[in-house]
């Protein structure tokens, strides 16, 4: 039996959130959307361990045009998504981002306010206000995980909104899916970037 041995470029996405914010769910929906978009290798995983509500957690999504053979934790990601901007003070978010990477933040601040001293691209979107406005609230918690997928689509250009919609619909009942996708759409539109980001082409 012979394994696949084609070259593969892997896009690593790291999610930073807090237990209960749905970072792991978002990582998995992104993997599904990427698969629908035609990426044949996709994986999504939480940072292995115990998750606790409120505690900083990470999750990862990987996708590639060919099957993925690695399952080790992502060291440096092409894209980092931060669900709670306060985490920037707690976790070494930038340490896990490549020098030419893209940082996506859930924040009401403009992208220029972040990491001006670095070469990274920054995108921000105020998913909290959007989710609150459209009533994406469960048991008093404003849900912004799926909304941030819209920001991911806009800022990275790696996954289409059509695929995201399909993936979201697969994961929620019709009513919840409608609301979650609406959040993603509005967040897509509200996403601001400090500059256009393209997936860097690398040798090897």
């Amino acid at each position, binding site marked *: *039996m012979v394994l696949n041995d084609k070259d593969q470029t892997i896009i690593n996405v790291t999610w930073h959130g807090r237990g209960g914010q749905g970072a792991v769910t978002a990582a998995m929906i992104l993997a599904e959307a990427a698969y629908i978009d035609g990426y044949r290798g996709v*994986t999504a995983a939480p940072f292995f361990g115990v998750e606790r509500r409120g505690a900083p957690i990470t999750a990862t999504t990987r996708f590639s045009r060919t099957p993925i*053979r690695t399952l080790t*934790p992502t060291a440096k990601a092409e894209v980092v998504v931060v669900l709670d901007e306060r985490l920037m003070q707690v976790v070494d978010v930038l340490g896990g981002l490549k020098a030419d990477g893209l940082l996506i933040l859930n924040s009401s601040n403009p992208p220029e306010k972040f990491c001006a001293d670095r070469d990274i691209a920054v995108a921000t979107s105020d998913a909290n206000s959007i989710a609150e406005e459209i009533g994406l609230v469960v048991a008093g918690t404003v849900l912004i995980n799926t909304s941030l997928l819209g920001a991911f689509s806009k800022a990275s250009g790696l996954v289409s909104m059509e695929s995201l919609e399909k993936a979201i619909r697969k994961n929620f009942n019709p009513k919840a899916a409608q609301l979650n996708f609406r959040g993603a759409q509005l967040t897509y539109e509200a996403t601001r970037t400090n500059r256009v980001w393209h997936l860097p082409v690398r040798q090897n």
Partner: protein
Amino acid sequence: MGAKLSRVQVIAAYPITPQSKIPETLVKYVESGELGAEFIRVESEHSALTVCISASTVGARVFTATSANGLAYMHEQLHWAAGARLPIVMALANRGLGAPWTIFNDMQDSISQRDTGWMQIYCRDNQEILDSILMGYKISEQVHVPMMVCFDGFVLSHTVMPVEIPEQEQVDAFLPPYVPHLQVDGPEPININPVMLAEPRANAQGVACPSYMGFRMRLQETLEKAGEVIAKVGGEFGKIFGRSYDCLLWEYKTEEADTILLTMGSLTNEASLAVDMLREKGHKTGVVGLRVFRPFPAQQLRQALSGAKQVVIFDKNISYGNEGATCTETKAALFEGGLRPSIANYIVGLGGKPVAASDLEGATLEFLGMKGRVNGPQWLGISV
């Protein structure tokens, strides 16, 4: 999912990280009526397997799942299930054993149970887990030996990846309903597994009863031949589902390779990346990944390693006081064939320590630099 498609009739399991998701999912299927099985709630793993043994004895297709200390707690019943020749299939999310506590992945749990008479299959990815469970029933119901389908806890159990889910009709065609080989409550009720003596003797009706050791011998003979059944069923599976498993081990770029990396489980895929990196640097390397550990595919292994001058064996387990289990067994297999490559044994990834392709590459380069035999197992990435 595999258990559902296999139309299991009785499930008994006790939750333990990282296996918990399996019983949680199955109980939902049972509750919603999607799966017409009996889910029996138990207070321990020992009871879980006991329930499976009883249900299997009276003719049900049964399923259980566990990890680490849960498997260790089943130990006595593992022997019983194999000795009673029951075709139980178990999903095992590999996890390290305490003390000290760990919830993370290594293979110490299943390797510690290698002498219980169960077949053990190790999966590289989530598709293989599903497929192996479907094949597992077909195989164990043919040879009447239980099977553990082992996969790396968290690394596989908590990673989402694309899995093709076969149609129920296809599975039904591949896996017909279980027909037990023994009827306990037939016209002449029987008492099963009574005390067997060391020598054959005549019972009260004057019928000769076999000896205990004879049963042990037959179990061994069956396992010796089970490899053929595993490969045959794997081939049949491939014809129906398009993914063939007609092998007991995986090979990657082994042709003309003078150095082989030997792995098991998800590490096999990681090692294939390491080989790509090593080949770019001009090292003729390849991977042999064990898919089946029990029965041990000694002959296939000899064949796969026949051209190798060096073999680097990565074990996510250790037999304390000796070395990694796959290393010992590989050496024994090579000895039989008169093969004498130089061998290094690296103990890796215990308690969930990540093992990246670059780690495997580094270890291989280190060994190649040593040019010769290494004494004892090396601990990858650990300095004490």
